[in-house]
């Protein structure tokens, strides 16, 4: 994304790109889409933001609709169905690997590990809703960070 927008098209300076990137964790939404909205807004205001948003979504949307149409037309025992069950199993392994890789840097940071574990337990074990997590656990975690003064 940086290579396209900063170097090839010259839409943003490096500083602007980093600035926008640093905003993303403080806002809802998937990062690449949020970034597209911010860049769109910078150039054409609200209309630019809307155009960027749709441009990001439409290709995936069309592709997934085609897959869904084929998928739902198949009988449960079909070969295609087995293939998608294999895909689902595969994605589990990928997600475990990603979660492990993201957790690894925090292995020596007990407070962070505590919050990773507490959040996972609250959601998976106690069936906390996302609202509760964001209202209770997130503010405590952020508050502790601010209090300890380390970033």
């Amino acid at each position, binding site marked *: 994304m940086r290579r396209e927008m900063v170097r090839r098209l010259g839409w943003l300076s490096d500083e602007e790109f980093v*600035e926008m990137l640093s905003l993303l964790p403080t806002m809802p939404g998937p990062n690449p*889409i949020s970034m597209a909205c911010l860049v769109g807004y910078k150039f054409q205001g609200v209309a630019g933001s809307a155009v960027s948003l749709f441009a990001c979504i439409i290709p*995936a949307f069309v592709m997934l609709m085609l897959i869904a149409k084929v998928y739902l037309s198949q009988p449960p025992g079909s070969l295609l169905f087995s293939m998608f069950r294999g*895909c689902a199993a*595969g*994605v589990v392994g990928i997600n475990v*690997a990603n979660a492990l*890789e993201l957790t690894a840097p925090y292995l020596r940071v007990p407070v962070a590990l505590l919050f990773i574990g507490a959040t996972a337990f609250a959601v998976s074990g106690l069936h906390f809703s996302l609202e509760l997590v964001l209202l209770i656990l997130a503010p405590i975690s952020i508050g502790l960070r601010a209090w300890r003064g380390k970033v």
Partner: protein
Amino acid sequence: MYYQLVSVFVVLSLLGFGGGNAIIPQMFSESVHHYHWLTASQFSQFYAMARMAPGPTTTISALVGYAVGGLPGAAVAAGAMFIPAGIAVTIGGALWSRLGEHPFRKVFAAGMAPVVIGLLWSGTVVIASGGVQSWAAGAIAAITLLLTLRTKVSVVILILGAGVLGMLFLR
């Protein structure tokens, strides 16, 4: 029906701090346990499709919408998923840039990170509940786990490869 889709996905859209994967546990519990739109296995398969397609994983909203109400359902769910967050980001971006380089931003991001990773683990648990329902499926997951940690094979290739193994062993 459309109202239910909108009510679920608008909330998820606005609560999606930390990217799309953080909202997977809630999306799963709403669409599988609460509304019974899909089975756990279907949800995991849809999730895999969304991971393979370009764009963010939250495009799974379109697949859930499609299962509920065909193409109109898909458009409604995707709109409810992406438009509120898009508006929030546009407004938020304008406000933040006026605030300037405030140190709170970094503290917020640093404090949120462990919570988001915890949500990621919970999301993995629900995807596994639908994706790994047999020893053979577990073996496929173990293979992609090792390949992700040890090699740089792309996610799309890994998922497609797992699909081929599925055709052979998950009959």
